């Protein structure tokens, strides 16, 4: 049994909160640059170059890329041979968010009640998802999720008869209806199968995949490419002002499902597609 102190978890979460908000992953930066070079509409290329400039300023000045520094979505994989000591893991994560968002000059965007509102003042609580895996390591992924794009996400419980085309049309329509709202170019995370909640979780986890990777199943890898092409033919473009670059990537995750169902969830992320990870 390997012991890991909750203090380590707090420190890691605090550091990732600040870094995720100021340093965009290299893969996302590279994808934006590639898209600017391929963009066939000058006004759209101009917007993408301003987005690249924003990335540079955030990195050099250590300031947030976006004022919406998000709800802290934390994905934890706990090795079954790990023993977390010194306190509660949930409190440790929230203490890390509190520290990172307060000391790092990040925006506090969380209200304590969805209807009655009231800002909690320290961006807690985080949304935490736990998974138990083999081994003696503890992996933490922190993804600050902005709600401009979160609000444009959709879920639908299809009948199996809707088939492949029903699923694909739903995903493309979701991006088209979102239009300029989620700050295109977007990253489209898709979860297909499982249950109502599992589909939504997979859609969010799909956003964590590196830009370059494809679904390991060639059928879904092909669908990712086809959907990206269809979305980039919509003409919405960066910020919705017209252009080719509406999406940077489409990522699909799947899971077996029930004979009666075919859940599909679409979680949209903006071009500030942020996350950091650490293995303790």
């Amino acid at each position, binding site marked *: 049994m390997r012991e890991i102190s909750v203090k380590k978890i707090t420190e890691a979460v605090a550091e990732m909160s600040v870094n995720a908000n100021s340093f965009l992953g290299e893969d996302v930066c590279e994808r934006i640059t590639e898209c600017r070079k391929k963009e066939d509409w000058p006004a759209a290329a101009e917007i993408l170059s301003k987005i690249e400039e924003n990335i540079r300023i955030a990195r050099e000045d250590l300031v947030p890329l976006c*004022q919406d520094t998000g709800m802290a979505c934390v994905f934890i994989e706990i090795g079954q041979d790990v023993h977390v000591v010194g306190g509660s893991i949930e409190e440790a994560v929230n203490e890390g968010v509190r520290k990172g968002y307060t000391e790092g000059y990040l925006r506090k965007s969380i209200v304590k009640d969805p209807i009655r509102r009231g800002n909690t003042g320290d961006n807690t609580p985080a949304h935490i998802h736990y998974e138990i895996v083999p081994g003696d390591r503890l992996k933490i992924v922190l993804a600050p999720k902005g709600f401009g794009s979160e609000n444009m996400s959709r879920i639908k419980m299809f009948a199996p008869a809707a088939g492949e085309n029903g699923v694909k049309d739903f995903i493309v329509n979701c991006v088209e209806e979102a239009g300029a709202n989620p700050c295109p170019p977007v990253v489209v995370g898709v979860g297909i199968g499982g249950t109502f909640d599992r589909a939504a979780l997979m859609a969010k986890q799909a956003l964590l995949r590196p830009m370059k990777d494809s679904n390991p199943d060639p059928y879904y890898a092909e669908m990712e490419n086809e959907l990206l092409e269809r979305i980039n033919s919509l003409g919405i473009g960066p910020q919705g002002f017209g252009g080719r670059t509406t999406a940077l990537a489409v990522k699909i995750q799947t899971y077996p499902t029930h004979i009666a169902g075919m859940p599909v969830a679409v979680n949209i992320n903006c071009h500030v597609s942020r996350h950091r990870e650490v293995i303790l």
Partner: protein
Amino acid sequence: MEKMLVYPYDKEKLKELKAGDSVLISGTVYTARDAAHKRIVEMIENGEKPPFEIEGSIIYYVGPTPAKPGKAIGSAGPTTSYRMDSYAPLLLDLGQAAMIGKGQRSEEVKAAAVRNGAVYLAAIGGAAALIAKSVRSAEVIAFEDLGAEAVRKLEVENFPAVVVIDAYGNDYYESGRLQYKNGNK
């Protein structure tokens, strides 16, 4: 080439702006988003004086990050505008000159802009560090308890935005996409 929009923002100047134009704004801009709009509209409906003069104002839909020491403001990009759609027509009817945000607006907001000669501008969503560089000063003037959502008086210089809905009701989200599609046939 950008058009300059300099305070005071009288309606005659706004007539010159066309959907799709790039503009650089200089002067006073007030910030307000969801919670502040709710309170401002409630104050007006209760016959109270809102925290700033609505007539001739530009309202920027933003909740900035806290300013680091020595900085005027933190990162300050636009939030999605449709959430202010239910409040905006009343403010436009009181003479609000312009709204800055991002994303589509309702037909009601568009109609209110046209009947009052107001405009809707978009700043680049997610380019908050870049946009913050055009903010010279920021001062909380109301609703401090709302934190990021408090009303701030900003002084901006060459703040970059794009005209989305002009005073004639043209919508750049529709025309820009159409122009691109026609240009690429």
